[in-house]
């Protein structure tokens, strides 16, 4: 049985205004999973987290933890711990007291408190800082204390609300690994909110991508990266973003403004089966699937002549901001390449890695009966990832 079930959750702040902060949110989480809610700011991910915590009321829908309905349980009785974006450490208490606070309220005996606090301090490397006040800590140390405060409680569920966004880039990288390690060690079911898709990709066992209060896709990092359910997910996950081209499928070719190319057989078969011949579609292709061709041509590459606008060296790679006719896109190529702006180059599009989306709805076009999904959404989400490769 699932650890956590969120069923048809809705959140509406103002009844007069008919807009939802969260709409029809469904999710089942298994014990020990690390779920990351990701999306642009204002997408409802924090609201969702705060509803799980009990800091916000659930307007409608049901939230079960270990099979018990939690909607009306106050936050203090939910046995959930939470790490806040700005840490929310109590500035007048020492690190030790900060971590012990929750246990003291719960009247845990002194010995047990001491044992747990010291254990957590050891895990997080805070042994030498226990008598300091938060003011005397660095950002990373504060972050660790906040984590420590959450883990001493040995709660059923661990919530984190953008815990790394106040750290500088280097520290963020380091803490990301530490949180992942911590999760491996403790195995506590966790829900993590972030707007940073890199964090989501690197830490999550499953990612929930949200936009405007609605779930866009749920899946493992690999699934959402390789099979984005819609244009939004395709564009949001992955950096630099996926390139999109509008066009039409005619005579087995993808015709876009200024260029056209052959669609690989398998994809074409799928598109035909779904009735997209002579219809408008959106083609998406990730920058790393466009390569610079120096004469030799791979089997599945479609070659196009493009003009370099700007090239940007990121270190290991080079980003080529290029254009074909009026359309601009990015190609990610090896850093050893030497090109100059204005130069015309031959780019190879790895078309069997391309994605096709419905032009109207932006939904992924796939050989999958979508009616099945509508009938049993829970099954679909909970099920082992079906390889929907075509």
């Amino acid at each position, binding site marked *: 049985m699932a650890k956590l079930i969120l069923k048809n959750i809705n959140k509406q702040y103002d009844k007069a205004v008919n807009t939802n902060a969260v709409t029809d949110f469904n999710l089942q989480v298994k014990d020990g999973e690390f779920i990351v809610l990701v999306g642009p700011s204002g997408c409802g991910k924090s609201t969702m987290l705060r509803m799980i915590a*009990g*800091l916000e009321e659930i307007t409608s829908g049901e939230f079960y933890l270990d099979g018990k309905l939690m909607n009306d349980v106050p936050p*203090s009785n939910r046995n959930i711990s939470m790490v806040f974006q*700005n840490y929310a*450490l109590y500035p007048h208490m020492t690190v030790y007291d900060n971590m012990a606070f*929750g246990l003291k*309220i719960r009247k845990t005996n002194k010995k047990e408190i001491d044992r747990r606090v010291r254990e957590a301090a050891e895990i997080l490397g805070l042994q030498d800082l226990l008598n300091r006040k938060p003011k005397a800590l660095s950002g990373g140390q504060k972050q660790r204390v906040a984590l420590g405060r959450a883990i001493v409680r040995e709660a059923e569920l661990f919530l984190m609300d953008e815990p790394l966004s106040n750290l500088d880039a280097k520290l963020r990288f380091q803490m990301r690994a530490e949180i992942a390690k911590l999760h491996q060690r403790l195995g506590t079911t966790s829900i993590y909110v972030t707007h940073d898709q890199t964090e989501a990709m690197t830490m999550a066992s499953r990612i929930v991508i949200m936009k405007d209060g609605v779930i866009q896709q749920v899946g493992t990092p690999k699934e959402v990266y390789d099979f984005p359910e819609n244009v939004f997910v395709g564009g949001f996950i992955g950096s630099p973003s996926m390139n999109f081209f509008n066009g039409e499928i005619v005579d087995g070719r993808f015709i876009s403004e200024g260029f056209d190319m052959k669609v690989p057989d398998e994809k074409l078969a799928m598109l035909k089966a779904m009735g997209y011949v002579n219809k408008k579609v959106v083609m998406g292709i990730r920058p790393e699937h466009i390569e610079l061709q120096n004469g030799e041509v791979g089997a599945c590459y479609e070659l196009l002549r493009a003009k370099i606008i700007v090239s940007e060296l990121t270190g290991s790679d080079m980003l080529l901001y290029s254009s074909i006719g009026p359309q601009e896109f990015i190609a990610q190529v090896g850093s050893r390449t030497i090109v100059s702006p204005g130069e015309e180059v031959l780019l190879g599009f790895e078309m069997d890695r391309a994605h096709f989306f419905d032009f109207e709805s932006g939904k992924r076009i796939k050989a999958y009966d979508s009616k099945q999904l509508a009938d049993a959404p829970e099954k679909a989400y909970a099920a082992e990832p079906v390889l929907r490769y075509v």
Partner: protein
Amino acid sequence: MKQSYFDSMKNREKVLKAVNFILLCFGSLLFLSPLWWMISTSLKTMKEVMSFPPTFFPKEWNWDNYIKTWEAAPFDLYTINTVTITILVVVGQVLVNSFVAYGFAKIPFKGREVLFAIVLSTMMIPGFVTLIPQYVLFANLGWLNTYYPLVVPAFFGSAFNIFLLRQFYMTVPNEMIEAARMEGASHFYIWRKIGIPLTKPALATVAIFSFNGAWNDFLGPLLYVNDENLYTLQLGLQVFKGEMSTQWNYLMAGSLIVLLPVILLFFFFQKYFIKGINLQSGGK
């Protein structure tokens, strides 16, 4: 090609600064002189006070003016009475307003904004509008000639202090309260263990302002207290003034005795006085 001294920006700045400094020095003499005059007069003999032209420094320092003053009226009784009232008022103001302000700042409930707007608008009501009917109320309760009218209202919150402390609570991140809520703490517990420690500086400010208000309150005792045994320092000093008419040396000694606690408080806790002012302006 001669350059005037003032052509250099640096020199002009220097002159401006000097003028500024001199003005400030002159001003502080102006501001301090009344206090010096009070001390000086309090030490003079009556003959010297009346002499013309008045002297800036007393010819001889008659410290026993203070003893005579203290003995001329029951200042010890007045002091005990005033201290009693002041302590009660300070305790009430600090505890109750902190509690109420926490509610307004950190607990969401229906109608909170409207009620707080009412709190603010009560500050606009001229005191005499409620003073007269309040007197009627206290008279009907049989509270005339007691300290109840001076002390009891302090335990029911004051708009200004609620406003001040709420301002301060607003600087405490909500997440801190939420974190404590999730750890299982009740609001009462959070107020005691987190709210009060975190707002200590503001509480000190409220304590000092309340002390000042209660210590210097003249109107309240004048209105509600008739029995001489219940007189406060302010009332006592007023009566003393009547008895001494123009014996300025004793009157100044009496005034200084009454003002001294406030002056000392000011020197020791100046930063809290200033904090209070800053909190006020923070609320625009």
